[in-house]
């Protein structure tokens, strides 16, 4: 995993609550057996018309938004399914952070495993971000857990300490679990099992 570094970016506002994973990446694109190629399908049904032509009024189709690395969305972002294709699509498009007043649990967990930082802010900060002019930039520093607004305001945001460590150091989480083999073996030795899926 690549180490997560501080960055500055313009922001894309989407003032809608409860943006679900079916909007982020519709289910028909989940037939892939690869992780790649999902960026073009991000927000597909909001982004393209029936003929597959980009809708000019959709924010991600506007030139200024194309280089943005920060998405600001309404409350409870990422609700719905467990599909990790959602953070894959967001990061392949180019996003490195999503800012909201809250996130759905599974999406948040999936995002952190893909170097996409879920940034929770209070509603006053959220309103400020939603109203930013296009040329304004924010600065995100994961190590300091801060988001700096164009007016100089610095807000801090919560991040799970372990996830933060994994992202900043580029540590492989599965590798970390594999190192605990002794503890896993000890647990297995004492565990009462009533299931064997290989029997019968």
């Amino acid at each position, binding site marked *: 995993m690549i180490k997560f570094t501080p960055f500055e970016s313009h922001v894309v506002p989407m*003032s*809608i*609550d*409860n943006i*679900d994973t*079916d*909007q982020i990446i*519709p*289910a*028909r694109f*989940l*037939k*892939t*057996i*690869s*992780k790649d190629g999902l960026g073009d399908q991000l927000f597909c*049904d909001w982004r393209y018309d*029936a003929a597959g032509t980009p809708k000019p009024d959709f924010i991600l189709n506007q030139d200024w938004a194309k280089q943005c690395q920060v998405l600001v969305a*309404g409350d*409870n972002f990422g*609700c*719905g*399914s*467990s*599909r*990790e294709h959602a953070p894959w699509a967001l990061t392949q498009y180019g996003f490195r952070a999503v800012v909201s007043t*809250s*996130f*759905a*649990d*599974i999406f948040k*967990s*999936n995002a952190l*495993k*893909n170097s996409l930082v879920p940034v929770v802010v209070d509603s006053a900060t959220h309103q400020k971000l939603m109203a930013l002019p296009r040329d304004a930039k924010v600065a995100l520093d994961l190590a300091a857990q801060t988001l700096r607004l164009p007016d100089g305001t610095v807000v801090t945001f919560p991040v*799970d*300490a*372990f996830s933060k*460590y994994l992202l900043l150091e580029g540590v492989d*989480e*599965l590798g*970390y*679990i*594999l190192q*605990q*083999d002794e*503890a*896993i073996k000890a*647990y*297995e030795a004492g*565990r*009462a*099992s*009533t*299931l*064997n*899926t*290989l*029997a*019968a």
Partner: protein
Amino acid sequence: MPKTIIEKLWDAHVVSEKEGAPALIYIDLHLVHEVTSPQAFAGLRARGLKVRRPDLTFATTDHSTPTTPKNLPIIDPIAAAQVKQMETNAAEFGIPLYGFHSDKQGIVHVIGPENGLTQPGMTVVCGDSHTATHGAFGALAFGIGTSEVEMVLATQCLPQRKSKTFEVRVDGTLRPGVAAKDIILALCAKVGIGGGTGSVFEYRGSAISALSMEERMTVCNMSIEAGARAGLVAPDDATFEYLAGRKYSPEGADWDAAVARWKTLPTDDGATYDQSVTIDASTLEPMITFGTNPGMGMAISGAVPDPANVADPIERESLRKALQYMALTPGKPLAGQAIDVVFVGSCTNSRISDLRAAASVLKGRKVNSKVRMMVVPGSQPIKRQAEAEGLDRIFRDAGAEWREAGCSMCIAMNGDQLTPGQYSVSTSNRNFEGRQGKGGRTFLASPQTAAASAIMGQVTDVRTLLG
């Protein structure tokens, strides 16, 4: 100190706890399907890892699979490749699989309980947000992403932070025409789609105890639609009765020991929860959703809410956008709204009791000529049982389609889908924009309400058809 069942399950599965890191918890059952696992198996291959516990792992194909007759090929080449990949992965890594042509194939959350794989006291995970279904057995069951699928395949463990405990108390007796589905839709409407975020629900109270295991599965299934990653019901005699004699259930002395252990799981008297909500089952009506998330629901006698009455600007805009997508008029009742499709199926409502409930309304009646009705059983054994009971004849005689088992139009990735603008009454779990097909509009309801609506060709209060 008295503990809730949620805390007991957690404590029993902690493998290790280190300062500054989440606890490592052990997974007793890992269910796998074709959509969220290929990238995980590819990860194992890339690292040269094996599946640590194939004996605690079970796979099926359900999401991408067509529900057309089994002698037909999978026409979509991308779906066919994904199904094939599941077969390849199961064979290579030694995982049991009820594949596309198995006579036990079915929806992952249906076949787990059906075969006795799901048992009380377990931790159960699957790369699917409706994994909470298995919570009906007193298991801590939750959906995970593909990175986590890879972790569980490789180590049988997951780093997890403890969730908050959330009591959902449902007392009273359901009135005729009101179903388990209406309880969970009422909860979603009450707490909202994000209401349970960060929590595990425990459903309890007299109305929950009175539910059959299949009804409890319906309730637990949609915990995620109220934001909770997991939801469960403490095991009781109904649980043990359901499990006795199932294929993977323990037997003999093992069974007795298991039941004795399972009886220690229910929440202790005096245990407290981080949060509680109560629902009076005796006042519930059949529920229906009007919007584009499962929290946007109401009693079927209600009227579509007006965004003008919503104070918060983003909330108002979200409701306005939802009603625009659904093409509904604020202030008008939903009963009487013309529909095009009725879908009975999904991990929420595709079990034999769901099919019986829909058939009991349809018996001797016809599906409205303007409506396409699809009935999709949750598994091949359920399909055979329904046929043995003659339910398929009731559906076919009424003019409904009787299809093969799978997720079908709940997620609409297998070819079963709405066309743009169509309205559907569906027994599934999500009414998100485009969920059942691009541009499609979904009203979520119980199997009884779905069947009544199919007959009338419009959203219908099933109580108007009860004798």
